[in-house]
């Protein structure tokens, strides 16, 4: 069955944060999905996935695979099973892409043209991380390897040739701008980062640029918290001190991978009392969310999650949208190039099938000739050998021209070449009927 590139997924446009957090594929889920493509037993009768990569971020969950026409359904079933949810809960939010559309989508994602914040740099790192995990799980092959490497180079080209990522617009930058609307000057404010990933690092940078005077970093792994705190001249705190030190901070940015809620409304009531009602600002950019949404109902407390921030930054993206048009032209060019390469990959099977075609017809005619000659008397070995040599030579000479044509097409990455040859020799159809001219004879 013919293989294609398939992509199924959901993102911030098709699903709200509650659905995205329900179907996020944390690292713990990945082995069961990755194993499915290498273990036919797990895939079962829906099998046919040759290569697989899983991308799961706060704004999207996407599964990229090379497989047959049943692959998208298989991926969705695996996904729903991995999350212990019925497939019907997932289906209303997913999109399915195939072939050039899937490639276009992937390149757009890598170039951050499909991001909530146009031009944001985090997605490329997240895609590279997903690729690293896929290669470690040995779930990629020739197509996805080439596709992902091409995606990375497309992202780099877009960043260098356009200004789509030029201005400082990001989730954490938007968060700092909001903080200024609440606190005014940031010089006497203190901030806490919960989680020490890439988003936390970016947030720390923007906070310090804005003038925050004290920075705390809290992480389950204290060593990682210390690394980040040292880098930004802050103070690392063990996770157990989170609740005790909250009264000292004005701004909290949370971006952990925790599946449970870390901060609840009742905790913050007590914190506010200890702070004498000085305002607090919480930014929750984690999916699943780290902070109880009811926190926003408290007086003098402001909570923004990742969906709220996208509204805030909309105004700053106008310039980037203009640049995005140029970036999309680059993506379209690269998609065409990759598609041509993909089609040229189908050349080898075409060459093999062409040779089989000539060989099969040669053998067919040889058998018929030997039977006719046999009817007149036994065929000696020398005659048989001469006839076989004739058929081999004729087959080679007849196949030579189309083979040269195909190889030229491969060099020029001309996808039309294999298609023409396949039509000319009916390689995709039934075995050709006997020639009417021969029948008349």
């Amino acid at each position: 069955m013919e293989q294609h590139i398939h992509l199924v997924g959901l993102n911030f446009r098709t699903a709200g944060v509650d659905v995205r957090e329900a179907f996020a594929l944390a690292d713990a889920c990945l082995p069961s999905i990755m194993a499915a493509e290498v273990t036919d037993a797990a895939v079962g009768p829906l099998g046919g996935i040759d290569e697989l990569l899983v991308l799961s971020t706060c704004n999207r969950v996407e599964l990229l695979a090379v497989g047959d026409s049943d692959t998208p359904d298989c991926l969705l079933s695996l996904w729903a099973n991995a999350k212990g949810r019925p497939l019907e809960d997932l289906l209303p939010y997913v999109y399915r892409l195939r072939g050039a559309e899937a490639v276009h989508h992937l390149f757009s994602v890598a170039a951050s043209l499909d991001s909530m914040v146009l031009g944001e740099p985090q997605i490329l790192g997240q895609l590279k991380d997903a690729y690293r995990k896929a290669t470690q799980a040995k779930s990629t092959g020739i197509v996805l390897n080439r596709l992902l490497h091409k995606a990375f180079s497309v992202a780099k080209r877009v960043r260098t040739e356009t200004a789509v990522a030029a201005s400082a617009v990001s989730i954490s930058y938007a968060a700092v701008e909001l903080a200024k609307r609440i606190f005014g000057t940031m010089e006497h404010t203190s901030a806490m980062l919960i989680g020490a990933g890439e988003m936390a690092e970016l947030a720390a940078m923007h906070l310090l640029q804005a003038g925050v005077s004290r920075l705390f970093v809290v992480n389950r792994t204290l060593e990682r918290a210390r690394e980040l705190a040292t880098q930004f001249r802050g103070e690392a705190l063990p996770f157990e001190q989170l609740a005790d030190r909250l009264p000292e901070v004005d701004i909290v940015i949370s971006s952990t991978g925790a599946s449970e809620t870390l901060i609840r409304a009742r905790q913050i009531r007590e914190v506010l009392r200890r702070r004498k009602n000085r305002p607090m600002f919480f930014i929750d950019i984690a999916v699943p969310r780290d902070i109880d949404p009811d926190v926003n109902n408290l007086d003098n407390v402001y909570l923004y999650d990742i969906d709220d921030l996208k509204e805030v930054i909309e105004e700053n993206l106008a310039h980037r949208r203009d640049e995005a048009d140029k970036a999309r032209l680059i993506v379209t060019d690269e998609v065409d190039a990759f598609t041509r390469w993909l089609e040229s990959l189908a050349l080898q099977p075409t060459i093999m099938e062409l040779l089989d075609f000539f060989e099969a017809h040669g053998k067919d005619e040889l058998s018929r000739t030997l039977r006719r000659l046999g009817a007149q008397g036994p065929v000696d070995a020398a005659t048989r050998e001469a006839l076989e040599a004739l058929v081999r030579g004729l087959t080679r000479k007849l196949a030579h021209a189309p083979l040269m044509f195909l190889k030229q097409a491969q060099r020029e990455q001309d996808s039309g070449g294999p298609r023409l040859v396949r039509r000319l020799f009916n390689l995709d159809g039934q075995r050709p009927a006997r020639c009417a001219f021969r029948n008349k004879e």
Partner: protein
Amino acid sequence: MALSELVPILVIHLYALATAAVLTGFLARSAWLKGTVFWVLACAFAFQALLLGEQLFSAGVAGFSPPFYMHLLSLCVTGTGLWVCRRTSHEALGLAVAPVSMLICLAAFFLRHHQTPVSLPLAGMFFGVHIVTLFCSLGFMTLGFGGGLLFLLQERAIKAKTPLTRRHKDLPDLAALDRVNALSLRWGFPLFTVGILFGFVGARLLWGEAFSEDPKELVSLGLWALYASLYHQRFARGWQGRKPALLAVWVFLISLFSLFVVNTFMITHHSFFTATL
């Protein structure tokens, strides 16, 4: 037209100009227009001060009529507004000060023919301090109202995650508005307390009893209790943000009720308008 007739009209026009400038400045996001508001208000203040000085010089205490007091009130509101605007550099406060002063001056204009002076005993020193301190505290209440209202508008937008427009960003941030409220309260409440005390002492001296269950006195005491509660909650208990902003709005509205409704439609020691209308 005599100068004493021309100047009030000029002052009204200046306040109207300031109101238009501050509104247009914020709607059109014009820094130049917003910058003119302070100077237009300062001009209005200067002309108003000259007008009152001229009346005091020419008529003495006989000139202490309701329009005079209303101009004095407007002068105190504008004066406190200019002082706070200078300290905080927030032109947005003009959104409260300019229209309130303009409305008071318009009321004075419509009552300009009611020149029956306030009775002489009420023109003494105690009542002078009573009136000036209360009028200045009303000025601070106006600023508290303006700051509180802007705080509530901004805070609602941030809480509701409404996309903040550029006009939102042109307004002071929440912390700045909260500081304006705190400043207004820190000055306004003590002045109000002094004004009330001098009022009661003056009443004792003039009518033989400090407290006579006069409706005006009752409303004033109720307002003082509310203001005191706000002062205590703010500075002793650490209230910040939404609650004090909301209370500051209520304090101003109740003080307007006391000044214009109670004084006009009820029989009290402060029925100056009823006596002259």
